[in-house]
């Protein structure tokens, strides 16, 4: 069985674990979610109990295994129930309206941060002890700033004070979303500051990691040999050192994705960006349980899918892996 298929199996197991955790959380939590909602809205009639149960999907008849089967069936059919805060819109329709915003913004910004960070890491590792190395404590500080905090400061400076960037939302009011230039340019313009926030706060992590791998790789015999036979240093850096240092970096990219996405989620609420993070936080603060659970699944699946893509890239990027795959 090729590596990719085996990894696919692993991600399916991980997805199943996420699904199962998601199923049991409402059932295992202390207290009763239905009673919690009833307590929050004192003017609900006692008869509403059943309705809330149905909404949360906790009052189903039948054994827990029967419920579990129904739940898996619902997920497969993308039936996440009806949203309680934007009744009667279905959760799936609300999700499909917000997912593209987040994927484009967070995805693009993360890839940009990864590329710039890796490039800077190559330089810092090669010029070990140079000026780029000396600014690393400053970069650690940038890395330690919470995403949302930097977002608010940037928003205050660039939007409120200098009016360079729009204050919030994903596009200018009055525009109809669609494939025309007015909308697209407006959407790009609105995404610049959020994307900048993601890049600034996550770039240092990629850079530090790449730099450290580079420092070790440069000490390897084959790099010294390449230098000794007089190859141009550009060739030594990129073809010999960076090429090999890139593989751990790619693996790190896959696993760090979950954290980057988590940070970006909180950042979205600062910009009132119409993405999935804003939806999740709104759902969490308004006790919109069906929405919360569906978003958790969507984010998890997206991260798993991205990891699978990273695995494919690793197989293509690592000649050793390619050879082993061929032998198998």
């Amino acid at each position, binding site marked *: 069985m090729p590596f990719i298929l085996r990894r696919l199996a692993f991600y399916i197991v991980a997805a199943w674990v996420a699904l199962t955790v998601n199923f049991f*959380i409402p059932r295992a939590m202390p*207290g009763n979610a239905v009673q919690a909602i009833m307590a929050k809205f004192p003017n609900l009639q006692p008869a509403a109990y059943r309705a809330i149960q149905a909404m949360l999907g906790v009052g189903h008849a039948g054994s827990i295994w029967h419920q579990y089967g129904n739940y898996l069936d619902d997920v497969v059919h993308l039936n996440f129930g009806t949203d309680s805060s934007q009744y009667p819109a279905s959760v799936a329709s609300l999700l499909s309206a917000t997912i593209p915003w987040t994927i484009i913004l967070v995805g693009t910004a993360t890839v940009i941060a990864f590329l710039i960070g890796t490039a800077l890491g190559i330089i810092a590792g090669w010029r070990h002890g140079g000026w780029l190395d000396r600014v690393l404590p400053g970069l650690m500080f940038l890395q330690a700033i919470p995403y949302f905090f930097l977002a608010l*400061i940037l928003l205050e400076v660039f939007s409120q004070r200098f009016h360079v960037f729009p204050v919030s939302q994903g596009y200018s009011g009055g525009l109809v979303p669609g494939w025309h230039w007015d909308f697209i340019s407006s959407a790009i313009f609105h995404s610049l500051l959020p994307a900048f926030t993601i890049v600034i706060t996550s770039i240092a992590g990629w850079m530090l990691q790449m730099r450290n*791998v580079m420092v070790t790789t440069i000490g390897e015999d084959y790099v010294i040999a390449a230098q000794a036979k007089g190859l141009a240093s550009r060739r030594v850096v990129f073809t010999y050192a960076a090429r090999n240092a890139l593989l*751990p970096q790619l693996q790190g990219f896959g*696993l760090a994705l979950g954290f980057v996405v988590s940070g970006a989620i909180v950042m979205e609420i600062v910009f009132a960006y119409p993405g999935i993070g804003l939806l999740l936080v709104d759902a969490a603060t308004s006790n919109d349980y069906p929405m919360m659970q569906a978003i958790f699944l969507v984010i998890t699946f997206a*991260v798993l899918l991205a990891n699978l893509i990273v695995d494919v890239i690793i197989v293509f990027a690592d000649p050793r892996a390619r050879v082993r795959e061929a032998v198998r």
Partner: protein
Amino acid sequence: MTVALPISTEPATITDKQPGRWRRMPAKAKAGAVLLGLFALAAIIGPLVSPYDPSYQNPAQSLSMHAPYGAHLLGTTQTGQDVLAQLLMGIRLTLELGLIVGVVATVLAVIVGVTAAYLGGIWDEILSLLSNVVLVIPALPLLIILLGYLSHKGQTATIIVLSALGWPWGARVVRAQTLAIRNRDFISAARETGESTWRILLYEIVPNQVSLIAASFVNTVLYAIGASVALAFIGLADLNTWSLGTILYWAESQNALQLGAWWWFVPPGLAVALMGTALVLLNTGIDELGNPRLRDASSASRIAGHLIRPTDPTPVLHEVPDERGRIGAFLHRFSRASLLDEPAVPDGREDAR
């Protein structure tokens, strides 16, 4: 000393005076330790010496969002509360949460990591699979759901939830290191002298990876502080207590920045960032202490040259020896590490045990 080695490369001054332990610490570690010490000091004595109760609302109209001055060194909030008092209390609560989560999650990580590597075989594969699964599931959305369902979102609930999700990365690092030292001579010697497995684990294996465990602890504290502040900022915390996250929550909900009250919003955020920087610096120092090769590097350096954060995979310090059982080998095939296996070994059939 009369026949001193003529070709000694040692500088002569070194024999004169050995600098103290503190002096020999890498500069970054010192900076991190000092910074963290200041925060710890602020957390311990700050709320005791602070002249105001952080929750006390001064009814004077003129003290609503007053800029910093003599009596209120960091100004006041909308309701006339002293920001400095809140900040000191916030540093205490946030640091306390970070440290407790760090201890609990690190203990879990050591237990899982050491058990997996020492028992090996099927246990190793099951525990590794478990850590990999928990690691790949994005933590913050899960945290949001878990806390969203809890009716009482206090400090304890946050600590439990963060600890429950914070261990797998440390477990991977500890496991890799345990594998690396498991077959060393001193472990075999201990086994030959008849020491019990527990004793070997506690007195031989764990002490030999203290620097790794310390690094894991520092990173977990970093993760806990970051996650708890983010969770509090979106309102998933006990909003009647003063942690750095809840201060930011209230400042944001009262539009502190838009109204120009930077003294309300900037200090708590800066405190979080500085605490994070201190922890990263400290971690760098720990690594440089443990790995002399990295000491000359004027910057961050990590185990075997890899930067390791909760987000990162463990560098393969030691290849897993080929002594897996049938099921163990089967499970291993689904891990990313299996990419580097030698293809010549027939799958699962070479049962070494």
